[in-house]
């Protein structure tokens, strides 16, 4: 019924545009179709595969990154929309030698991840929230955590990890 296509020869005709992105403090130039979403550019063009895709429609939150410091869903943004903004992904959290950040430490301490697929989204969601609301409390954290889906943990340890991190940051500040 079918044969292999000769369409390969036609690749490259598709309209592409140059997009300049600031990701984790580094400037990247990519030539992509306008329809390419930010998460696909991060993952497949820049090789930053820590940001995941769980539903493609902005509901599960696995693709959460920070855009100008605020959590956003990278699956619901065209890459071009992020031009001129600072994008931060999960790859930016640890130290240059791979040392875990206090938030990442809290996640491992509290067993806030099992399969780890949703984890980068929760980390970036939490990172954005803690930066905006350092005085946050557990009830507020639970509401924020409710923005993303996790299928493994039952959420309790995620809430506890973020709360623990927030307390430690406050304690350090007071010292």
């Amino acid at each position: 019924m079918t044969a292999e296509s000769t369409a390969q020869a036609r690749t490259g005709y598709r309209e592409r545009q140059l997009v300049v992105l600031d990701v984790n403090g580094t400037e990247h130039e990519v030539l992509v179709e306008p329809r390419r979403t930010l998460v696909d550019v991060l993952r497949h063009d820049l090789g930053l595969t820590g940001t995941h895709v769980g539903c493609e429609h902005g509901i599960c939150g696995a693709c959460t990154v920070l855009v100008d410091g605020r959590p956003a869903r990278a699956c619901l943004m065209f890459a071009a929309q992020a031009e001129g903004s600072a994008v931060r992904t999960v790859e930016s959290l640890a130290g240059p030698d791979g040392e875990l950040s206090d938030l990442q430490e809290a996640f491992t301490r509290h067993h806030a991840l099992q399969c780890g697929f949703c984890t980068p989204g929760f980390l970036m969601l939490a990172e954005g929230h803690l930066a905006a609301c350092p005085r946050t409390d557990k009830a507020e954290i639970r509401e924020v955590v409710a923005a993303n889906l996790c299928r493994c943990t039952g959420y309790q340890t995620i809430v506890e990890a973020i709360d623990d991190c927030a307390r430690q940051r406050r304690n350090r500040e007071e010292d």
Partner: protein
Amino acid sequence: MRAFEYAAARTPADAFARTTPRTAYLAGGTTLVDLMKLGVVEPDAVIDINGLGLRGIRLDRDGLRVGALERMSDVAEHPVVAAEFPVVAQALQASASPQIRNMASIGGNLLQRTRCGYFRDVATACNKRQPGSGCPAQTGANRGHAVFGTSASCVATHASDLAVALVALDARVELAGPAGRREVPLADFYRLPGDSPQVENDLRPGELVTAVAVPRLAFARRSTYLKVRDRQSYEFALVSVAAALDVRNGTVRDVRLAVGGVGTRPWRLPLAEQALRGKRLTEATARQAVEAGTADARPLAFNAFKPALLRRTAVRTLLALGG
């Protein structure tokens, strides 16, 4: 997602010059990108309007004015909005998720499309998406659908929480297009589906929402938004109630009441407001008023619960505000 051309407009004129019936404006993108992925919307070109300014949250003697490109979270967290119009802040906070609120614009929120499953599934018929193809929701999965303003062509609800709050407050939308600027009461901006559900609002070709204006209303400080939903996050309203109450010594001087999750557009309840004015606020008067205001509800097979749920929620909201 179908391929398209992308252009960022630098000025309104630039934007207008680029628009055709096959273009779409892009602000936050949270609705547009979603619908493009589903194949529900397939523009030839997307015009990014984020460079047009259209920002600012200002309160003056006329009231509140919010630029259409302000993000939902910025408006929700703005101290003036929270103090003067709590119903607006609360409606925004009850919407979507923090990430979406950080991305989505106010104008885009008001123009968001229905969450009707048939509308979103290109494999099925839908008069709104494909005029004349039919409306499976009339008899199909219609638990989330409307009980007010429905027609034989469409029973989809309007999905915006913010719009419900704004309609309660007599907000107006400022529009700009190739033919100039104008201003329309938000309640009139939205159209009933009738036999052309594909036309959802009063926007003319190429027109943009540029701002939302909320007239000064002192008693809006006593306002609230109550939303009932299946999940507490990322969930559209089964029913919602936006209310503002001016009550002195137990007597209602004035009241604003609009409801969501139940109408094909944000649904104001003028009869209920009228019935309450001048009355003492009690459970009985609230119930009578709400019942009077919602008597024309026409439930479908799977949303018969909505009128009763709505009435209870509205009564609770009023009593909570009055207490």
